[in-house]
């Protein structure tokens, strides 16, 4: 599929989604789809980082937690509008991600993966100990009883309006990445992916562009976490365990890191499939087995994931016009 065809497909899908999905009458499914959309944003960050730069981030959900934490703290501490809190959350998460990853950006890919895993492990402990702000006093802002209210955006107070709001930002996230890929950073990343030595020889500041990529990934994580906070009105530490970060990356690979529909598939697997399993009363451990097997299969035989396989299928059906 050529680039412009992908973009058209994306635009049509976005319009269809933002019109039809929020009109689903079910309160449960609105909640599930909002959560899925938040994770689409987060997975996008991980996916482009791996696909375009070959960098593995095993701490994306932990960074989501940071974004969510900042969003909640801002909401309960000051009376600023949602959008402002959102920007603060994004910036703080981006800087946080940089601080964590900067040491490892000059090293082998494996070490970046490991340091993000360590960050995920450390943040899991911090979230579990200090919990998330719910209107209490002090820096940590936690009180032991029912949470204070959360202020959603003015234009998106109801659940369906909020879903539409989040879907818009999903499209925005994809658009930002597309813009990057079509301009200087994208070219630098492609060179770095090919050969760091060659990139260095051509005068590309490898560390700078790697940091840019990681910062963007962190910003998307912060965005996703902030939206998740807005969806539930509060957050719980068990959402942000290190194992969740690992699972998120695993499913990003299974879905297909190169294409936007691969990211959507990954988010559906991460959030909709467990909900379905729950509805059908299937043991959640079975989901683990399926995900693990799918991950291994993906890595070994289908490096482009489910999205890549769909692509191949469509190409075959179309008889290879392109």
């Amino acid at each position, binding site marked *: 599929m050529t680039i412009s065809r992908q973009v058209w497909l994306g635009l049509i899908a976005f319009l269809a989604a933002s019109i039809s999905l929020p009109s689903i*009458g*079910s*309160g*449960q499914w*609105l*909640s*599930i789809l909002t*959560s899925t959309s938040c994770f689409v944003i987060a997975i996008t960050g991980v996916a482009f980082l791996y696909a375009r730069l070959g960098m593995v981030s095993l701490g994306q959900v932990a960074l989501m937690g940071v974004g969510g934490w900042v969003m909640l703290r801002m909401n309960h501490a000051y009376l600023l509008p949602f959008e402002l809190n959102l920007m603060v959350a994004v910036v703080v998460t981006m800087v946080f991600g940089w601080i964590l990853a900067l040491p490892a950006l000059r090293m082998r890919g494996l070490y970046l993966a490991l340091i993000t895993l360590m960050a995920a492990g450390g943040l*899991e*402990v911090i979230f*579990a*100990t200090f*919990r998330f702000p719910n209107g209490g006093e002090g820096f940590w802002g*936690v009180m*032991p*009883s*029912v*949470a204070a*209210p959360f202020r959603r955006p003015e234009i998106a107070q109801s*659940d369906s309006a909020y879903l539409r709001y989040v879907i818009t930002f999903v499209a925005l996230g994809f658009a930002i990445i597309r813009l990057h890929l079509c301009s200087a950073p994208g070219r630098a990343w492609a060179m770095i992916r090919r050969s760091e030595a060659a990139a260095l020889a051509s005068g590309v500041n490898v560390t700078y562009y790697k940091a840019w990529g990681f910062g963007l990934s962190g910003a998307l994580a912060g965005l996703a976490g902030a939206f*998740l906070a807005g*969806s*539930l*009105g*509060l*957050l*719980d530490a*068990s*959402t942000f*365990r290190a194992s969740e970060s690992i699972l998120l990356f695993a499913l990003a690979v299974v879905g297909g890191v190169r294409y936007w529909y691969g990211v959507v598939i990954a988010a559906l697997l991460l*959030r909709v499939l*467990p*909900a379905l399993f*729950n509805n059908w*009363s299937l043991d*959640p451990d079975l989901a683990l087995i399926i995900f693990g097997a799918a991950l291994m299969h993906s890595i070994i035989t289908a490096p482009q994931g489910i999205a890549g396989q769909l692509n191949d299928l469509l190409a075959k059906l179309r008889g290879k016009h392109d």
Partner: protein
Amino acid sequence: MKTITYYFSLVASILLALPAVAQAAPECGAKTGIKATGSPIKVGGIHGNAAPGDFSSATDAASAYFDCVNENGGINGRPIQYLVENDQWNPELAAQAAAKLIEDENVVAMVGNGSFVEMSVNAPTYKENGIMAMASACAVSECFESSNIVSTNQGPLASSIGAAMYAVEELNAQNISCIGLAIPSVGNWSCGAVESYMTSKGLTGSSVLLNPAAPDVNSGLLEAVASGADSILVNLPAGLGIAFLGAAQEQDLAAVYSWTSSTPLYDMSVPAALGEYWDGKIFVSAELTSLDGQGIDNLNWKAVMDAYADENDPRDTFSQSGYLSAKIFVETLLSMDAEQLDDRNAVSDSIKAINDKRSDLMCGPYYVGEADRHMPNHAGIVVVNKNGNFEVVRDCFEYEGPYFEPLFSTEKALGLR
């Protein structure tokens, strides 16, 4: 001679069979024996069932009781449709479950809820939607300190105070170290109350808070040892509690301290897991009455479970608790106007009006009332693990301490004191 023996054995076997016959017939609801066939009344329930624990026995028991009620006339001829969701210890799933039950299914009340995360996530939702949750297996402070949730179980705070009281009154404890989870709404909340209780008695109390995921319980144990305590109160979920006692066993501390525990260790698999070393040493404050009790409700609970529940459903304290919540809920519905049974607000008002419901499963009366906190169950028993089983060492006693003052004044207003 033969005739006398024959008649004797006949009478004896009849007398022996009578309890079995009496046990076999559970009594539920209106007890009409006629199946209910009207339009269903929708009731919801949320439980948590995934690693690290299974709280589903409460909703299993409530479900069994509702099935029994539906076989016995239902509520004025209408069956109860019990919709149960599993939050899998995931806050998002808990919110989605509540959205499904409240917004999509329009349930009139929640009964039998049992989870570690559900109450903290959904308490605001329940308040916004004016729905009452008659929970059965609560472990967080939000469950006991919110206006729309009331539970039949005690939770860690009350249960720990019961254990502390036993330690002070029967085991001569002067300095208790409370081992809890490092979660503000669980460990800090309940162990903090134990410290206040000890201070109010002119004694000393301290807390050791463990991070639930940390592999090292040893340093927590050492912290307790270093605090100068003479009695240790284990206020942890069963798995972590066993690990902690295992570390204590390694240090051979069973005889050095007196050991008490809050309710999670009152579980039939615990004595075997603890082994002989701890035999007769752990005094557990149970939140409902003994599982082997001979009271009417306890026997009826067993009968209902045998008749309507799955064989594999655990018959534990949460199960008793779920049965009790369901029973009181049904009694409340039966006392309402038939036309109002589909009106959530009317049901919520009736639930809030519940006052002075007694049962041999609970040591004190169950009540709700219009308040921003509910903890009707604050009296319990104490058991000790002996010979692979549990023995009751102290029968029903009410808990004291600064935490319960506001509750006592509410109870006075309701005429319960």
